[in-house]
């Protein structure tokens, strides 16, 4: 039943109307000319936690210790209503003693009696507090996702511009870039998965998935659970990808039978992550004399992004690296 139907019924039969009012699903009040409550729907009693006896016959503004004596509602009833037959979804925000702060959409309609010129008023209340809260949470999430998306595009753009072109074929450039892009994708995947918390073990697995054809090539030792922020996830993903690439080009993964062993520990105070990288079975390694973008990327991601440090030992048996990064710094999103 809508307002129009109810209007028609109220004009013809008061008794019938009373029964109908009770069946209306949302909180509804019928007021007389002096704004005393003539009828109220069951939903009104339930929603506002009041009973029939303290409501019917009472002036609206005195109901429930004056909880309806709301400035915005007074303006609606005294100023707006007399000039319009109907007001739809007029917003009222108010602290209700029993309910707390609620945001209501009030719809009002005046009913003129055809014979004696008296009038009544129908008022309905839609509680949109929850809906507004959900809307604003969703808006925040959307804005946060937009920010993150633009940020990761900016990173991809920067990497594309800085990936070496000199002396490289187009195919080589593409593969280099797509390798780094893949590390970004792995990080995003993880960062978006579970409330923005990425897990170190999963990240390492994802980054080294391309090497799993030979199960002995990359050995990931089980370690403590470490939750990473999206920023940490992205930086570590790029670092690990570059280290893998370097091992495949110059280190243990460049020869069959070579092996990379990855392990990590968290110190007792849970403030530092120690990530160890050990190469064995590859060619004899020497410290490189020039640094390319890949090496710069590793070092800058550790020191600049993660405010950590890195030690590298070009041992005769293979490269040994240790990355130490501080954990648990509170961070803003993005």
């Amino acid at each position, binding site marked *: 039943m809508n307002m129009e139907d109810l209007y028609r019924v109220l004009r013809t039969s008061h008794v019938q109307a009373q029964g109908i009012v009770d069946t209306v699903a949302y909180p509804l009040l019928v007021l007389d000319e002096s704004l005393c409550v003539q009828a109220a729907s069951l939903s009104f009693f339930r929603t506002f936690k009041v009973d029939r006896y303290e409501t019917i016959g009472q002036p609206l503004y005195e109901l429930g210790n004056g909880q309806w004596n709301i400035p915005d509602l007074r303006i609606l009833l005294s100023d707006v209503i007399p000039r319009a037959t109907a007001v739809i979804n007029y917003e009222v925000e108010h602290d209700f003693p029993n309910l707390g702060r609620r945001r209501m959409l009030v719809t009002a309609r005046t009913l003129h009696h055809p014979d004696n010129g008296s009038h009544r008023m129908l008022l309905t209340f839609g509680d949109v507090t929850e809906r507004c809260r959900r809307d604003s949470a969703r808006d925040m999430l959307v804005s946060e996702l937009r920010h993150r998306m633009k940020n990761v595009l900016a990173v991809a*753009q920067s990497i594309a511009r800085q990936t070496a072109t000199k002396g490289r074929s187009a195919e080589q450039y593409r593969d280099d870039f797509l390798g780094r892009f893949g590390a970004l994708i792995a990080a995003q995947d993880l960062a978006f998965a579970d409330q923005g918390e990425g897990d170190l073990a999963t990240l390492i697995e994802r980054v080294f998935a391309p090497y799993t054809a030979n199960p002995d090539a990359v050995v990931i030792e089980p370690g403590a659970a470490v939750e990473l922020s999206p920023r940490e996830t992205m930086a570590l993903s790029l670092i690990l990808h570059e280290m893998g690439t370097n091992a495949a080009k110059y280190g243990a993964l460049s020869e069959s039978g070579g092996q990379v062993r990855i392990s990590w520990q968290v110190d007792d105070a849970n403030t530092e992550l120690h990530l160890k990288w050990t190469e064995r079975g590859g060619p004899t390694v020497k410290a490189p004399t020039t640094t390319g973008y890949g090496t710069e990327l590793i070092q800058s991601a550790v020191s600049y992004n993660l405010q950590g440090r890195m030690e590298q030992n070009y041992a005769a048996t293979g490269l040994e690296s240790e990355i130490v990064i501080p954990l648990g710094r509170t961070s803003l999103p993005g």
Partner: protein
Amino acid sequence: MQKTVLVVEDEFTIAMDLQNMLETHDWRVIGPVANVQGALRLLEKELPSVALLDVNLGNELVTPVAKFLKRHDVPFALASAYEKAEQIGGNILAGAPNVGKPAVERSLLATLNRLVG
């Protein structure tokens, strides 16, 4: 005299890219630097012609750097993914041009040149 620009950006891939781009176009880059403390330390030594600021520096906002720059009459531009950066970083950022993120090279350079006059 060579124009100087302070770059505050916490993401190193973007910071390095900005640095390369600016140096190619004859700017001398101060930084890049990833946090407020580092930026203020650099500013104590030398005031740049202009500054390029990311707004959200991971675990802090760039706002104190913007305040310092304002006090010393150094113009600044923003390089932020936020559309309304002042809602995040405060009123001090209102009115500062935002070259966006990702930044388009041409408009970034044009904005910095306009700010130094």
